[in-house]
């Protein structure tokens, strides 16, 4: 137990050190880098010519971290009665968080069902797996309007398609992929000896799935879930913009981008929020994975 809590302490410490390192890099480059950046092949007297190889470090392009933090405490707009910026960011991020988790859940279900179907029937695997891979090559921005317009046609009784559902569907579209692929590998991972043992015990397909294949798939599922969590966040942020869903962090990034010259620190607030959103989802996935550690003994021991 003590080694476990010590390793937890160690990983938290390295995590914090990583964030600190990022802050040092930011401020260090800001202090040492050229204020106007470095351009190659720039023509004298012509603004914006050449290729920028080092970014500018002035306060508009790279505000000090402390300025960003102070800005977070101030109201969103110039009127003092407005909500503080940090609160607005947290509210937007929590809306996105809910949608991302919703997408992740759909992705988990869809990915698992696909993987089980592919494991069960060879023909399904050879027919569906290429489609699954192909699905990830469709650009998200092409997909978003389609999902939205299809969704708008769905109306079953009281149920009416909401815009956030389109966003969740797109997040799920990205999230199901690593789960389907990882889960399939995991379900196929038991050795011939294990499968024959189940056969000799007169185990049916379902019983073998529950007692052998699903537990054996856990070491493959946990890393797949981490990937899927990150994909769900990216999918949510991008889809909020493409679908045009207000209130989320993705939309906020776009809205605040307009303040880049007048209020540069404000631009970074929703970006920080998106980062935190990713961290929270990663943390939740890791937490959800803890009870599954029993199935990862051989993996964790090595």
């Amino acid at each position, binding site marked *: 137990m003590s080694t476990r809590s010590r390793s937890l302490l160690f990983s938290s410490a390295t995590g914090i050190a990583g964030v600190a390192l990022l802050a040092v890099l930011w401020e260090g480059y800001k202090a040492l880098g050229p204020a106007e950046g470095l351009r190659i092949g720039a023509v004298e007297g012509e603004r914006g010519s050449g290729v920028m190889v080092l970014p500018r470090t002035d306060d508009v392009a790279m505000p000090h971290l402390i300025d960003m933090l102070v800005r977070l405490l101030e109201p969103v707009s110039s009127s003092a009665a407005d909500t503080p910026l940090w609160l607005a960011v947290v509210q937007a991020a929590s809306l996105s968080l809910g949608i991302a988790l919703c997408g992740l859940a759909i992705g988990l279900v869809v990915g698992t069902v696909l993987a089980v179907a592919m494991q069960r029937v060879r023909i399904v695997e050879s027919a569906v797996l290429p489609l699954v891979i192909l699905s990830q090559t469709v650009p998200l921005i092409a997909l978003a309007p389609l999902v939205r317009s299809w969704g708008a046609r769905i109306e079953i009784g009281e149920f009416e398609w909401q815009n956030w559902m389109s966003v969740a569907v797109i997040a799920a579209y990205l999230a199901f992929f690593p789960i389907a692929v990882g889960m399939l590998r995991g379900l196929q991972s038991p*050795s011939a*000896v*294990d499968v*024959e*043992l189940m*056969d*000799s*015990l*007169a*185990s049916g397909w379902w*019983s073998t799935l529950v*007692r*052998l294949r699903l*537990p054996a798939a*856990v070491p493959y599922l946990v890393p797949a879930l981490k990937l899927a969590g990150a994909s769900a966040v990216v999918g949510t942020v991008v889809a909020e913009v493409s679908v045009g869903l207000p209130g989320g962090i993705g939309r906020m990034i776009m809205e605040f981008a307009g303040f880049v010259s007048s209020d540069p620190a404000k631009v970074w607030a929703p970006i920080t929020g998106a980062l935190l959103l990713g961290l929270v989802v990663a943390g939740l996935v890791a937490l959800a994975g803890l009870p599954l550690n*029993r*199935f990862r*003994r*051989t993996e964790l*021991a090595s």
Partner: protein
Amino acid sequence: MTIIIDTPERLDTTTDAVSVDGVTRIFSARKRGAADVVALSDVSLTVHAGEFVSLIGPSGCGKSTLLRQIADLDQPDAGSVSVFGKTARRARLDQDYGIAFQQAGLLPWRTVSQNIALPLQMHRERGLDVAARVRELIELVGLGDFADRYPDQLSGGMQQRVAIARSLARNPKLLLMDEPFGALDEMTRERMQSELLRICGETGAAVVFVTHSIPEAVFLSHRVVVMSPRPGRVKEVVVMERAGAPVGSDAVRDDAAFFRGVTAVREALHDGAAAGQGVENR
């Protein structure tokens, strides 16, 4: 220690445990141009209730394939297999046999007792106290202190004991064993052989035991079935004399009858084939 052998549907002991009749198994070649492999050719064999029969022969003689026919993990192309008078498939579905392989094949996420309990959980018997039965089995294979350990915390020999306990879980009247001690060191191996005989004596189960070790086959068996490869067939059946030292004791290994048995099996193996080919002589 008392082990309850009687189950409500006690099998008729006059029925043979295994009856293999003219079984042929041909593995068709995957690649074009390659010849089909005749793994078993017209093999017949009878194992009586409570009898210990070893299958021995060089690699590729079809001894494992024969065992898999009896276990219904593979089906013959010709001939028939019956287990306790039923088809092999019926016997498998009725869980009439227990099986152990060369690899222990334990589920790494289950403890020793959970692994042993697996066959009992899959087909629940009414009125059976699973926990008590598992404790009994753990004592039987001498793993009393390791009930809550995971397989990765056990040595190879201990893992194999767990696998054997699992194969005994439903108190089968037939044990099928495919080189279960093949991966163990010599000392562990000899101890496990003695324990297996003790367990068989207590449960009265018939055993079909695949091995490529002559002393192992001679020490354990009532009869040793010597097989030859390409095509796999039964070459000779050597009946062991069981006299002198008590069965299963280490004294048997020094007995003159034991050495006569080893010689007889070795001669049967080498007769006609190039001496020593593919046979491990340990």
